[in-house]
């Protein structure tokens, strides 16, 4: 019992108030009268935080001035600051982090917030929603990755074996975060677009490979996808048609459609347009079965149906092999004219 109590106490002592590591105490970060807008800090963010977390040279200066112990070893995110995908340009560390630290948060279900993030958040996604509340995953989407809720039922044949199931919770930071696993964890920066841990091409016209869609393949088995275990025309679209996962799916949620499909969204207007009847719809007709009425990669899907037992009206070979990038591909071409 004492050991359990000790663990709780240790968890409740956050690093920034560990005066052994920070002999400068409050003064390491604060002044009585800071610059306007900063909470009693002499410089803005992220410079304030980078004085200790921004590389050896800056840290050495803080140690020299007696603010920080030489043995403190704070996380160094200086390499992240040079990455092209920076979380809001690291303008506000305090948007996510509680500088004074927080007590160990309760874990009710799913996954809890990361250490050092704000106390008011019970779950990590709540922290993210503070800025990204407009994301469809925070609305009431028809389908979603299991960040806020778990699906009531479902069949997910592409999930990798080894623990992931339809009942597995997902954190935002499972997909988003630093691209180099040797660097401090955290959604600070990545060499990949959208601050993803792995590469994920969103433009069409890319040759399919394990690395082209590495982010999706981190959880979804590539072999299963390409063997059409979930959607009977995955290989046709992804390999032959060089269509990106993003073109049909939203990685967060499907606002109105199942399977995280986004083909009705305005965000896909650059690549998906109405069919010749003016329809831009997807209709689920059964388990692993549906009907597409839209025009994509120049092909009019005029109510095309698919399903595990339903052969496509058109032959797969009619889907053209794309050689150009999405922005070069004409959309809504009416070949009957």
């Amino acid at each position, binding site marked *: 019992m004492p050991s359990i109590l000790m663990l709780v106490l240790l968890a409740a002592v956050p690093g920034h108030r560990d005066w052994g590591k920070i002999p400068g*105490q409050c003064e390491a970060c*604060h002044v009585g*009268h*800071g610059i306007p807008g900063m909470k009693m*800090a002499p410089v803005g963010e992220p410079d304030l935080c980078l004085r200790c977390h921004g590389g050896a040279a800056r840290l050495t200066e803080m140690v020299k001035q007696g603010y920080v112990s030489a043995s403190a070893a704070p996380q160094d995110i200086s390499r992240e600051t040079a990455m092209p995908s920076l979380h809001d340009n690291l303008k506000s560390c305090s948007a996510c982090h509680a500088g*004074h630290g927080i007590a160990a948060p309760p874990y009710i279900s799913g996954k809890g917030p990361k250490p050092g993030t*704000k106390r*008011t958040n019970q779950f990590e996604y709540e922290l993210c929603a503070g800025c990204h509340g407009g994301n469809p995953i925070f609305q009431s989407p028809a389908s979603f990755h299991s960040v806020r809720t778990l699906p009531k039922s479902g069949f997910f044949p592409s999930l990798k074996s080894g623990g992931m199931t339809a009942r597995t919770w997902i954190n935002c930071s499972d997909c988003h975060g630093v691209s180099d696993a040797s660097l401090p964890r955290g959604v600070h920066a990545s060499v990949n677009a959208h601050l993803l841990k792995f590469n994920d091409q969103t433009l069409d016209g890319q040759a399919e490979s394990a690395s082209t869609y590495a982010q999706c393949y981190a959880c979804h088995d590539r072999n299963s996808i390409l063997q059409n275990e979930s959607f009977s025309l995955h290989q046709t679209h992804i390999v032959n048609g060089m269509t990106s996962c993003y073109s049909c799916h939203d990685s967060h949620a499907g606002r109105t459609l199942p399977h995280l499909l986004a083909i009705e969204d305005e965000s896909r207007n650059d690549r998906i347009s109405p069919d010749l009847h003016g329809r831009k719809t997807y209709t689920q007709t059964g388990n692993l079965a549906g009907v597409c009425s839209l025009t994509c990669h120049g092909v009019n899907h005029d109510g095309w149906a698919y399903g595990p037992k339903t052969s496509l009206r058109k032959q797969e070979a009619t889907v053209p092999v794309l050689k150009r990038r999405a922005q070069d591909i004409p959309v809504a071409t009416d070949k009957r004219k």
Partner: protein
Amino acid sequence: MKSLFGMAVLGLAVVSPGFGQDSVANTVHNLARSGPGTVKSPAVEDVCGFCHVPHTASPAVPLWGHTLSSATYTVYHSDSMASTAVQPNGASKLCLCCHDGTIALGDLKGRNAALGALTKGSKGYLGTDLSGSHPVSMVLTQAVMDADNAAGTPLQSLAGMAGDRDGVRLDTENRVQCTSCHDPHSDKNYPISGIHFWRKPKFSEVCLVCHPS
């Protein structure tokens, strides 16, 4: 004996960095001709007269003799602070009549000591944007403090705050004021703290009176 006493005093002056600065006359708040700082009025002799008058004072306590500022301030805000930020009042209002830079230092009741206002960038200048400064003038009740603690601002109890021997405490209405951290009459800790009129030798020692680690 006298020489021994004199040597002892001299010795204290050498080993005690703040020696003499516990008298306002020896601080930069002495704006009279005898003041040790660079901001002062050669025409004024009385040390106390820049802040106090014996008669017709406003407010009467503490016999205030400097023209007050009518500025509206941008005040501190933080998600981790449950207290409602308010415009400076009480003793803080008195400090700001010089430190907000809107009123001339020499604008005294009944006379003009010919000393201009603090300008942006000069030492002691705070301006009217106090959003980066420690909040002042809000009344702390136990309910407010409980809410602050819950919001992430650790606060000592009112009784605990009142017990500091160096006078780091709330005012008589349980409000934080500039004078909670600064003693305008004594700069004895400046040589160590580097912060004028700081109530303790170390910066953090003042913070930790109210904000326990």
